[in-house]
């Protein structure tokens, strides 16, 4: 278990954050730009000097040790691969530094590259890899030193949307063999929802909220958290691209349950998440493309910054973020019945991990 108290005092910035993670847990550190997320990771990794606090791993202090003697791994937004080494040598670098023989290191590196699906790219130089492949090499490189705590600093942020989706979907698989704790820094709530067991939301260097993704999403404590993690999140049973949402009576909605169409191809229990900003509202049943739609009742209308959040009741409770103009166009009022629609490409489905 890692127990850290990170204290950083700079002229116009103060970070004061306590983080505890247990092996096997994925904690997402979420917050706006400048909140101190990356600083927190850099202090953990030994790259930035804290003003105080401590970092304890199973009771042993590691905060006085230099980076190379901390049992941490780190993957940043950019893969930061060694450009003069092949993928294999990049991944073998860590084990070599930590005392493995050349043959052992190569064997481990080959295994990790296969694990992230790059078994055919062992000899490729970083310059010849795609952004997504390079990021997977970076992940394999970090995992190859078997860190106790893996630090992921916006690992998907630099990827273009087309690459991002498959990499995110597979990041969970890649982390599946990893027994250590994982701290994921992100400003993207979908990344956090998809990957984390627990969220820690920080603003201005301080913790503002902590909890499971669904808790935080359901009960945001600040406007920012609401906007940040105010995702619509549902549990369901997936069969291919269709997810039937749990907890609905089989004939509760137009004689059947609600089925959402998603981009991911999954089977078994899953979560489906989509941001309120992706939900569109319509006065009548929309014609044409959107396949995911349902009728709901306006339960609440409130302002979040420059957006207006509409709470809907119905087969599922959902939030939609609209502009003031859209709200006026629809003439929304409490108790009104509207149609909500969401495109499959705006949803994100991921396996519901069974917690031990």
């Amino acid at each position, binding site marked *: 278990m890692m127990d850290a108290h990170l204290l950083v005092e700079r002229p116009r910035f103060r970070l004061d954050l306590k983080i505890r993670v247990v092996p096997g847990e994925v904690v997402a550190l979420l917050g706006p730009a400048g909140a101190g997320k990356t600083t927190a990771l850099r202090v953990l*990794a*030994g*790259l930035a000097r804290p003003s105080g606090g401590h970092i304890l791993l199973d009771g042993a202090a590691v905060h006085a040790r*230099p*980076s*190379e*003697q*901390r049992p*941490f*791994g*780190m993957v*940043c937004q*950019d893969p*930061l*691969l*060694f*450009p*003069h080494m092949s993928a294999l040598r990049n991944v073998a*670098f*860590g084990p070599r*530094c*930590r005392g493995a023989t050349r043959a052992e290191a190569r064997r481990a590196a080959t295994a990790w590259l296969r694990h992230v699906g790059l078994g055919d790219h062992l000899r490729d130089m970083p310059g010849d890899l795609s952004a997504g492949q390079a990021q997977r090499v*970076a992940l394999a*490189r*970090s995992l190859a*030193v078997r860190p106790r705590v893996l630090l992921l600093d916006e690992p998907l942020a630099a990827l273009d949307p087309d690459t991002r989706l498959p990499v995110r979907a597979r990041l969970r698989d890649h982390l599946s063999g990893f027994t250590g704790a994982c701290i994921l820094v992100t400003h993207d709530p979908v990344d956090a929802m998809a990957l984390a067991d627990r969220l820690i939301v920080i603003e201005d260097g301080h913790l503002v909220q902590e909890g499971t993704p669904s808790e935080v999403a359901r009960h945001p404590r600040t406007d920012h958290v609401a906007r940040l993690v105010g995702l619509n999140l549902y549990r369901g049973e997936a069969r291919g691209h269709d997810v039937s949402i749990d907890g609905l009576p089989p004939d509760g909605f137009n004689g059947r349950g609600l089925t959402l169409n998603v981009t991911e191809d999954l089977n078994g229990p899953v979560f489906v998440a989509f941001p309120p900003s992706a939900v569109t509202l319509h006065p009548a049943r929309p014609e044409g493309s959107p396949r995911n739609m349902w009728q709901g009742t306006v339960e609440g209308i409130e302002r979040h910054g420059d957006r207006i959040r509409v709470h809907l009741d119905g087969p599922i409770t959902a939030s939609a973020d609209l502009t003031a103009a859209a709200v006026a166009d629809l003439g929304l009022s409490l108790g009104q019945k509207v149609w909500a629609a969401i495109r499959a490409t705006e949803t994100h489905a991921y396996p519901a991990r069974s917690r031990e």
Partner: protein
Amino acid sequence: MRVFTATRRRSRDTGHSALHDGAGGVPVILMVPAAIGLAFLVLPLAGLLVRAPWGTLAARLTAPRTLEALRLSLVTSTAATAACLLAGVPLAWMLARVAFRGRRVVRALVTVPLVLPPVVGGVALLLALGPGGLAGPWLSTLGVTLPSTSAAVVIAEAFVAMPFLVICVEGSLRTTDTRIEEAAAILGASRWTVFRRVTLPLVAPGVAAGAVLCWARALGEFGATVTFAGNFPGRTQTMPLAVYLALESDPEAAVALSLVLLLVCVAVLACLRGRWVNVA
């Protein structure tokens, strides 16, 4: 340093110049001075080629004294470059990576030999390492007398040429992404391993460019060498010294020797061209 990063931008530069050419002629007010500048740089070299004693060139260049000077020049400038690499790369690393007090002062000090008249450098070296110099007593107890030895030539050349290397390598270090080094540290690499296996390979082009510049500067060194090491054939008389001396007694020999130096410089430029200098 700009020279050395130019190739990376070459494709884009070409695109731009094509655009400007299409936009209509070059203003005369720029073209005339440009032509004068070019002529000023090229004419002396042409003069050297025209006045070269081509008939007796082979005989002159294979004369023992010439060969001796050439050998001494090549050996001392290579030794000076090696010394500069050993001390200059770590110095550049310190300047680029370690935030110590007085770093700006140190950086200024490093560039002093670059602007200092070489003769003054030679005088300074005499006062520091000469018989009556600061380190003189210490050196004489060790039984070392530097002036008028080939070692003194190496020292004089290294003194004048090292800033070229340090500036080149420091520039290279500053433009590399330090986060790659941090990544290596987190993977368990000690600072020395990071330097050896990550930093050095990353700045290798800069080190090579710096070494070539440093070597060329050492090869052409005159003032500090003649002041500190003296002018003794076989021991301290390098090519530039031989050229200067020959000019007094046998101008044609001076031209021949100059041609050799010119050839060496052109060869160095040709080596650099492909990677670091945007000549095309």
